C-alpha cells in the first residue's frame, strides 16, 4: 500500500483539475482455490491481485482510471489521463490526509495463509468422503475451497485515509448421483467472512451430506407442473427472492436514474405489512460484511422496508449527489478494475410469527421451493426470475412429491405484496452477486415465507 505522503502528492495532483472530488482505491489481494474431484486434488490456484483505481468527480460526472503498475511514473500517467478527461487546471487545493483508525468487527482466528496446503485439502477430503459415503448411488463428487484475503486502502480529497482487510472462505461441494440413465446433481456452498475456524462449526462432512441428499432427491423428482400457484419458499438461500425481486431495484444504480419500479416510492407501501427487510453490512464475520464500504465509509445496517413501507434505498456517494440524498455507505466493487457503485451486503427479510406448518394450511395445490438457485432482475420493468434447485409439490396442505426443472418469475412491483405469511426461522445463504461493479460476496436470507400466487415455469403441463 502507498504511503500517506505519496497519496497526498497524488491526490493533490488529481485536484489540479476541474474535479471537485478525488479518490484513490488501492487493493492487494491473495486468493487461493484448491479443487478436488473424487478425492484427488486436481488444482491449487493462487492469485495475487495488486492494483490501483483513481476516480475524480465533477458534479455528476465521474472519470476513472485503473492499472496495476504502481510505480510513480505509471500512477502519474493515470492521473494525467483523468485530469485531461475532466479538464486540467494549474492550481488546486493541497490534500492533507488523516488516517482513520477503528476496531475490526470481523476478526479472524485461523489465517488460511498460515495453514499448510495439505490441511486445507483435508477439508475437501472430509466433504468428499461424506458425500461418497452417503449412498452407493453417489458416483462422483467435485469440490473446491476458496480462501481470500483482500486488503484495501482508500484515500480521498476530503482528507480521509482508511483501510480494511476482508478475509473470506467458502467451500463448494457438488455431488452427482446416478441410477440407471438418470444422472442428477446436488450442491452445498457455505461461506463466511472468516478464516478456517469456519469449518470448526460448519463441518465439511455436513456439506458433503447435504450435496448428496439433494442429488438423491433429484433422482426421484418428476417434471414440475407450470402455471400460477401458491409457493412456499424456504429460508436461507430462499432469500434470493428478495435480493432479485426487490433488492436490486432499491440500489441507487437504478433508482437515481429513475430506472427502478421503486423510484420515488419512499414512504409508500411496497410490500405486505408483514414484510420488513434490511441490508446489514455490519454482521460480524458474515459473508457479505466488511468494516468499510469501497468508498471508505463505515458499513451500517439499513432498514429498507418496515412493515411493508419503503424506508431506505442503498446509495453510494456519486448517486447521493444525483438523488439529493445522503449516501448509505453502500458502495462496493469486485476489484480496482471496477468503479464502485451501490450494492447489497447481507440482505434479508426479518422474522414473522407463523409456524412452518401454518404456511401449508389451505393450499390445495402449490409448490414448496426448498432450495433456490440464483436469479436475475430487470429493475426498470421489475421482471425477475429465479431457479428452484430442489422443490416439492404441495397437495392438500401436505408436501407431496419432489419436482425438478422449475423456475419462478414475477414482477417486483407486486410480489412483495403477495407474501402473506412469514415464519420465525431466519437463516442466511451465501451467494456471489453480479452487477455493474463486478461480482461481490453477498448474503441473502429470510425465514420461510408464503407467496399467495406466482408463475411457476416447469415442463409438465396439467
Amino acid at each position, binding site marked *: 500500500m502507498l504511503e500517506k505522503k505519496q497519496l497526498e502528492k497524488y491526490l493533490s495532483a488529481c485536484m489540479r483539475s476541474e474535479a471537485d472530488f478525488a479518490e484513490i482505491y488501492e487493493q492487494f489481494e491473495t486468493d487461493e482455490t484448491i479443487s478436488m474431484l473424487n478425492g484427488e486434488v486436481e488444482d491449487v490456484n493462487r492469485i495475487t491481485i495488486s492494483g490501483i483505481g483513481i476516480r475524480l468527480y465533477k458534479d455528476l460526472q465521474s472519470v476513472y482510471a485503473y492499472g496495476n503498475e504502481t510505480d510513480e511514473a505509471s500512477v502519474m500517467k493515470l492521473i494525467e489521463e*483523468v485530469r485531461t478527461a475532466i479538464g486540467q487546471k494549474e492550481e488546486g487545493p493541497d490534500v492533507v490526509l488523516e488516517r482513520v483508525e477503528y476496531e475490526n468487527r470481523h476478526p479472524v482466528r485461523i489465517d488460511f495463509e498460515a495453514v499448510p496446503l495439505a490441511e486445507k485439502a483435508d477439508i475437501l477430503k472430509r466433504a468428499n468422503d461424506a458425500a461418497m459415503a452417503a449412498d452407493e448411488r453417489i458416483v462422483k463428487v467435485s469440490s473446491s475451497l476458496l480462501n481470500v484475503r483482500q486488503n484495501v486502502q482508500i484515500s480521498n480529497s476530503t482528507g480521509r485515509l482508511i483501510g480494511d482487510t476482508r478475509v473470506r472462505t467458502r467451500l463448494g461441494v457438488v455431488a452427482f448421483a446416478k441410477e440407471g440413465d438418470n444422472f442428477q446433481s446436488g450442491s452445498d456452498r457455505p461461506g463466511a467472512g472468516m478464516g478456517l475456524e469456519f469449518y470448526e462449526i460448519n463441518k465439511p462432512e455436513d456439506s458433503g451430506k447435504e450435496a448428496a441428499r439433494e442429488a438423491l432427491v433429484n433422482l426421484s423428482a418428476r417434471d414440475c407442473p*407450470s402455471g400460477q400457484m401458491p409457493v412456499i419458499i424456504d429460508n436461507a438461500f430462499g432469500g434470493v427472492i428478495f435480493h432479485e425481486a426487490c433488492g436490486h431495484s432499491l440500489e441507487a444504480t437504478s433508482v437515481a436514474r429513475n*430506472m427502478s419500479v421503486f423510484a420515488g416510492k419512499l414512504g409508500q407501501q411496497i410490500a405486505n405489512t408483514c414484510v420488513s427487510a434490511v441490508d446489514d453490512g455490519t454482521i460480524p464475520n458474515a459473508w457479505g460484511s466488511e468494516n468499510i464500504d469501497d468508498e471508505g465509509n463505515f458499513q451500517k445496517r439499513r432498514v429498507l422496508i418496515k412493515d411493508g413501507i419503503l424506508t431506505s434505498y442503498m446509495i453510494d456517494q456519486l448517486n447521493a449527489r444525483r438523488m439529493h440524498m445522503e449516501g448509505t455507505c453502500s458502495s462496493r466493487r469486485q476489484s480496482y478494475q471496477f468503479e464502485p457503485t451501490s450494492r447489497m451486503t447481507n440482505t434479508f427479510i426479518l422474522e414473522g410469527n407463523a409456524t412452518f406448518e401454518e404456511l401449508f394450511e389451505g393450499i390445495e395445490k402449490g409448490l414448496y421451493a426448498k432450495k433456490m438457485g440464483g436469479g436475475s432482475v430487470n429493475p426498470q420493468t421489475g421482471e425477475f426470475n429465479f431457479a428452484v434447485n430442489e422443490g416439492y409439490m404441495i397437495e392438500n396442505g401436505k408436501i407431496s412429491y419432489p419436482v425438478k426443472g422449475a423456475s419462478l418469475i414475477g414482477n417486483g412491483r407486486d410480489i412483495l405484496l403477495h407474501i402473506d405469511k412469514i415464519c420465525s426461522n431466519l437463516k442466511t445463504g451465501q451467494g456471489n452477486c453480479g452487477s455493474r461493479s463486478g461480482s461481490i460476496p453477498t448474503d441473502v436470507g429470510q425465514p420461510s415465507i408464503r407467496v399467495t400466487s406466482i408463475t411457476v415455469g416447469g415442463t409438465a403441463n396439467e
Partner: protein
Amino acid sequence: MNKQKWIEYALQEGFSDFEIYQSLSSEKKVTWYEGQMDTFVTSRVLGTALRGTYQSQMVNLATEDTSDDQMERLIRQMKEQSAVISTEETAAIAAPAECEETVSKKAWVRPGNELIKKTLAELEEKIAKADPRIIQVIHLSWNEEDSSREITNSKGMRIFEETHVQLLQAGAAAASGNEVKNDYRAEVIEDLSAFDTDAFAKKLAEDVVSKLDAVQLESGTYPVIFEKGAMTSLFAAFVDLFSGDLIGKGISPLRDSLNTKIFSDLITVVDDPRNTDAVMLANYDDEGTPTYRKVLVDEGVFKTILHSSRSAARMNMTSTGNGYKGSYTSPVDVSPFNCYIVPGEKSLDELCADMKDGYVITDLAGLHAGIDFVTTNFSLQCSGYWVRDGKRDYSVSLVTVAANFLEMMKQVTAVGSDLDWKYHSIVTPSIAFKGCAISGK
C-alpha cells in the same frame, strides 16, 4: 520481469519445464447521459500467469506483482502446491509448432474523443425522438479495448497475439400506461466516422417499442422459434457439453456420445478460432497450440470433442487447440472459440410463415441459474411475440420456457439463415422447434 531469468531459475529449482503467460489489456470507455459525458474510464492491466511441471505435476500461479524480487518466493510456492496435487492427468507445456497465421480482416479506425462524444450526443437525441413512447435513453457507451497475450516457455516457445475491439452500446426504455419495457443494442464498429446513427437509433427504438402492450400466454406447449439472439444465449449456456474436460470427468451428458446422433439432422456445429467473420480470431490457444477449424456436430452426429492438453491426456487424445484461460488468473480450461451453428436457407420471416401459429422468443433471462447442465433441463424467463397466420401479432412477456436441451435439439424443424457474429464468439442463427412448454397464465 526478466522472463529468461525466471525460467532458468525454475529449471534450476527442479521444474522439468516452465511457462510464462502474460496478458496486457487497456480500455477506453465513454458513457453518456442526459446531454453530457457521464463517465470516462481508462485502464492498463498487465497480468502474469506462471505454470510449470514439478515432480510430474503441473502447477499454476497468477500474479500482478512480477518484480524480480518476487521470483524465489513464487517459485517456492509453486513447489509447495505440487506436493498436494494428486491427480494423475496433467497438462503439458508445448514445444513451438509451425503454423501459418491467419490475419484479421478488421480495419479498425480509432476515433478521437470529440467524435465519440458527438456520436453519443447525436444518438441520444435521435433515440429519444424516434418514437413518442420512448421515455428514456438508459444507456449509451463507447468501448475500445486492446488486449495482447504472450506465451514464453522453456521449450523455446514465444507467441504473441493481439486484438482490438470497438463497441457501441445503447439502451432505451419505452412506456405504455403503467407498463415499462427496455432494450439494449450493441454494434461492433470498425470506423465510427462511417457509422449510421439514424439506422441504429431507429432499430433500437423499434425493438423497445415493439415490446410494449405485452401479454402473458396461457400455459401450454406451443411451436417455438428461438430468434438468433435468444438461441445464441441458450446454445452458449450449453456449449460446454462438447468440453473434453467435462466429458473426461464424466460430467457432460455427452460423455458416451461420440459418433452418435445427438441433434437433429439439420444441426451442424463448427468451431473455428480463425474465422475472420468473427470479431476476434486466435491462431493459437492459451497453451500455444495452433488452432484449426473443426466440425463438432455433423448433421446431428457428434464428431469432435474439444480438448486442452490436460483434458486430452485424460482421454488419451490430442489437444484440439481449445485450451483457453478465462483471464490470466484462471488456469487453462477447455473452451470453444468462434463456435457456431451452420445457418440454413430461410429468413426469420420465412420461419415464421412456415410455423403459422406459435411463439418467437427474442430474449431469455436468468441463464446463469435456470439451467441444469447435468440433465440439460432448463426453465427460463423469456419474452418475444406471438405469430398468427405466419405474421407477428402481439408481444409476449413474463412467461417461462422449459425443456430439455438435448431433447429439444432433436426436435428442430428449421434452421434460419440469419447468422450474425456481432460481438459474440459463440453464435447461432434463429432455430424453429416443434414445441416447448410455456408457462404463463
